[in-house]
């Protein structure tokens, strides 16, 4: 009998970190305000007290320093899980992530692995000031050498953070910050799937919705509404933006013939664009309509009072569903 516990996404990440750290004393946590405070979202709450200053520590407000020292610590045999406080603050570390962390194993022809996890609370919907609501995942998905994943629910959060830590490659771990307090059951005994496996969360026959992170909840809402209107939507949680599990998407498209890709990120040159392009290549003869994308507009993330208009909601997904069905 599996051992299920109800918890929030934030608590599930916390529990996953605790479990990993208990099992391997080479795992370090560091970042801005993550020690006594537990991070601005309290994801690391209690871990400083439990594992001590040598394993859980605050850093200066220096994102390049956070990632750059994680690279050096990886060379020393440590596995660092670092927190970037907000999505929009990751760019001072962009150099270290893309030119060093992502390339070190390739540069060293396999001699040096980079088991580093970069945790990034991302996405909008929390009424924040500028730089606190962004979805920068495409920059990292575009960079060879990185793995990019995002849990959408507590069970995935609990397991995927542990899988990310266990990986010998660098993993960008995007946490859907507006869903941090969303509750759900966590199976403490058995992981749901590997971290790069997409999952069908709801089966349907008319249109497939492929999405990830904070938009999974939105897509599930859209599927509920569509069902009332007589349309059966299949919802896929990609879970991984690099690599992308195209097999699961294509299998679904073979059944439904229609695909809508939804994300908070702007559509132009996005993960959604990649899904659309590849599905056209892989399943052209199964498609009854072009793959449509529902995303943020191609503008800077707007001021908080406009974000509800910027962010795709269930209605925007359903508008795309209607267009797909109209072909």
């Amino acid at each position: 009998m599996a051992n299920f516990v109800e918890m929030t996404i934030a608590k599930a990440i916390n529990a996953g970190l605790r479990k990993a750290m208990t099992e391997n004393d080479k795992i370090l946590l560091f970042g801005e305000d993550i020690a006594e405070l537990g991070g601005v979202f309290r994801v690391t709450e209690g871990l400083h007290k439990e594992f001590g200053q040598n394993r859980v520590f605050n850093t200066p407000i220096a994102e390049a320093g956070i990632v750059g020292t994680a690279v050096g610590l990886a060379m020393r045999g440590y596995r660092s899980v670092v927190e970037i406080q907000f999505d929009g603050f990751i760019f001072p570390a962009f150099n270290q992530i893309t030119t060093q962390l992502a390339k070190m194993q390739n540069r060293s022809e396999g001699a040096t692995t980079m088991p580093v996890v970069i945790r990034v609370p991302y996405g909008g919907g929390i009424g924040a000031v500028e730089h606190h609501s962004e979805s920068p995942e495409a920059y990292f998905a575009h960079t060879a050498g990185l793995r990019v994943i995002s849990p959408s629910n507590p069970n995935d959060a609990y397991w995927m953070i542990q899988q990310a830590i266990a990986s010998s490659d660098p993993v960008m771990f995007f946490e859907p910050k507006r869903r941090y307090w969303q509750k759900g059951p966590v199976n403490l005994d058995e992981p749901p799937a590997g971290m790069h496996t997409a999952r069908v969360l709801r089966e349907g026959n008319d249109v497939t919705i492929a999405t990830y992170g904070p938009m999974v909840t939105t897509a599930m809402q859209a599927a509920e509404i569509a069902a009332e209107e007589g349309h059966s939507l299949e919802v896929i949680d990609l879970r991984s933006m690099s690599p992308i599990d195209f097999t699961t998407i294509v299998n679904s498209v073979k059944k439904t013939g229609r695909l809508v890709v939804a994300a908070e990120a702007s559509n132009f040159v996005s993960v959604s664009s990649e899904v659309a392009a590849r599905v056209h290549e892989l399943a052209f003869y199964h498609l009854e309509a072009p793959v449509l994308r529902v995303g943020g507009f191609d503008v800077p993330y707007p001021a908080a009072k406009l974000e509800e208009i910027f962010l795709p909601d269930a209605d925007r997904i359903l508008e795309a569903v209607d267009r797909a069905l109209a072909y």
Partner: protein
Amino acid sequence: MVQLLSPEGEYSVAPQYAEYAKLVQELSEADFLKFYRDMARIRRFDFEANALQRQGQLGLWIPAIGQEAAQIGSGYAVGHNDHIFPSYREHGVAITHGIDLMSILKMLRGVNHGGWNPDETRFHLYAIVLGTQTLHAAGYAMGVKFDGKTGTGNLADDQAVITYVGDGATAEGEVSEAMLFAANHQAPLVFFVQNNQWAISSPTHSQTRVPLFQRGAGFGVPGIRVDGNDVLACYAVTKKHMDEARGGNGPFLIEALTYRIGAHTSSDDPTKYRSSEEVEYWKARDPLTRLEKFLRRQGIGQDFFDEVAQAGEQLSEEIRSATFALQNPPAQNMFKYVYSEQHPLIEEQLAWLEAYESSFGDQSHLTVADPSQIPNIGSVH
């Protein structure tokens, strides 16, 4: 500025630098000869590599001529337990820790991006993006501290880390962050700044209002300036401060004042931005000539210098023939090391390339001679 050898090769010790001189007194004549051999060797290598670049054998050459004392002196002061995070001009430091010179040439020919094993050599890969390596060094040194391998009082077992950075790269924000992190953790890290006075075309005085050895003060990283063309001073200063870092005293910054006699790289034209008088001034302070004068004062005869010159001729020939024998790497290499674990996109693209290339039969780019058959040249091991 710490100086123990005058440009004329006279050994003299100012009273305030007696603690450094003590470390030189622990050296034997054999050590002095080793310094000279390696300085001459790396200079000869530099000339040969430059010629190979001009002949189209290398994509780029990054000369270090003029910086041999700073590199050989500091390199030999680094212990065999310590780790080194170089920039991209540290060919001299490389040979003091067993790096095969051909692996440097392979990289600059474009055979690979690195080419030696940093775990085995403790000499980490060249960092092309300026200053990035200083943060890796800071992280590594933090790890040494976490492992309890510093300040135990056992100097043979304790470890320290050294990172090399140029005057130009000190402007990178990441170098400041590295000083901050290292100081906050009191990590055993020495920043060895080779001030060769030119960041491509920008002179040092245009980059900093405060001398570089003072750069770390605000971060809690004390510093000192050493004559970077004086191999004995570079050895002694590095040795002392590496030992202190190892002993738990935290980070330190050494500014070695030297001069880049050559171009920034083979793509550069220094005649456009500096005078020949300036270059001549520094040639008169050449580190290799200075050590030669010292050794002759010590009674070292012409036979030794002839022997070194002969070894240089031999190295040149070996380098040339090994470079001509270099094969292109197999195309699979670009897929092989991107991830350490399975990745479907990489596998798919490699499979595609193999199928595509096989359609060319004998002309396929995927069948080349085994690059591991290339002889190793210039390793001190």
